[in-house]
């Protein structure tokens, strides 16, 4: 499993820095092993440098920068170990308008290999999906689904 881990780590690290540069439009990011001599026990650190800034302790990053860096790492893991399904529950909440658009474009790149289910309150995100469901509680306490886009049968 030592080789398995190192192979995954190397591939994910390479993709992570590519996806980071794509989402941030520049800058640098990479992973590093806290104890490279012991691949079976070592932890993994994250370095991230948004464009124009110095490399700093990731705890100093802003709420939106942390979310975007996390998404970059998530997608890197996805590329390595493609899973047919990905659920993202309001991941756009900390992002500004420009980054919400960026995230939408990014998801559309993957949509041929992954099915995404995205919960959101953001109108920009709603416009980039392929099909849209609404959930209501017309009857208090009882959830009901409505299909709000692309017609077809009303699921209920």
């Amino acid at each position, binding site marked *: 499993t030592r080789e398995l881990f190192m192979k*995954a780590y190397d591939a994910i690290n390479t993709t992570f820095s590519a996806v980071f540069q794509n989402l941030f439009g520049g800058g640098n990011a990479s992973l590093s092993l806290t104890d490279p001599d012991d691949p079976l026990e070592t932890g993994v650190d994250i370095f991230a440098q948004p464009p124009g800034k110095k490399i700093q302790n990731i705890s100093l990053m802003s709420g939106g920068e*942390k979310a975007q860096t*996390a998404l970059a*790492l998530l997608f890197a893991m996805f590329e390595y170990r493609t899973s*047919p399904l990905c659920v993202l*529950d309001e991941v756009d909440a900390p992002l500004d308008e420009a980054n919400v658009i960026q995230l939408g474009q990014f998801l559309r790149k993957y949509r041929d290999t992954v099915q995404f289910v995205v919960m959101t309150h953001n109108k920009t995100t709603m416009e980039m999906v392929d099909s849209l469901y609404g959930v209501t509680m017309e009857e208090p306490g009882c959830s009901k689904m409505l299909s709000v886009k692309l017609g077809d049968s009303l699921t209920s």
Partner: protein
Amino acid sequence: YVIRKLRLFGFKSFPRETVIRFSPGITGIVGPNGCGKSNIADALLWVMGEQSFKNLRGGAMEDVVFNGSDKLAPMGMAEVELQLENLNPPEGEERFVTIQRQYFREGDAKYRINGKRVRLKDIQEFLLEIGLGSKSFAIIEQGRVSTLINARPEERRRMIEEAA
């Protein structure tokens, strides 16, 4: 494999039988605060074998069963079914596979694949084979997107191991 349909019945805030059809690409789910969007994410996590009630935001596993509302009485069972389609089924294998999970208020749990009773372990093994095994990065719950960044180095290692 692709996800085709999710059916909820008596699960959390869904007392009535509810079917959600998934098409390829991106499916958006919208609605006011508290209407049941994250409960759908929980239903996906649960039917795929999640055993910790904490990860389902409950105080006990019983909290997945519809607990009643102003007008409706509590129910005795929660049931979720996920239908998957194999786009290239090998000779003699089914094109559609349905996994089902039930939980009864007294504590009984039942699992089925294509209607046949199985153990939880069988469901987890099936999902592992088709790439849906590790849910830690396939389902990002509300408010937890930055967990990967805030996690300790050992926890990040575990996530990479799951992907390996």
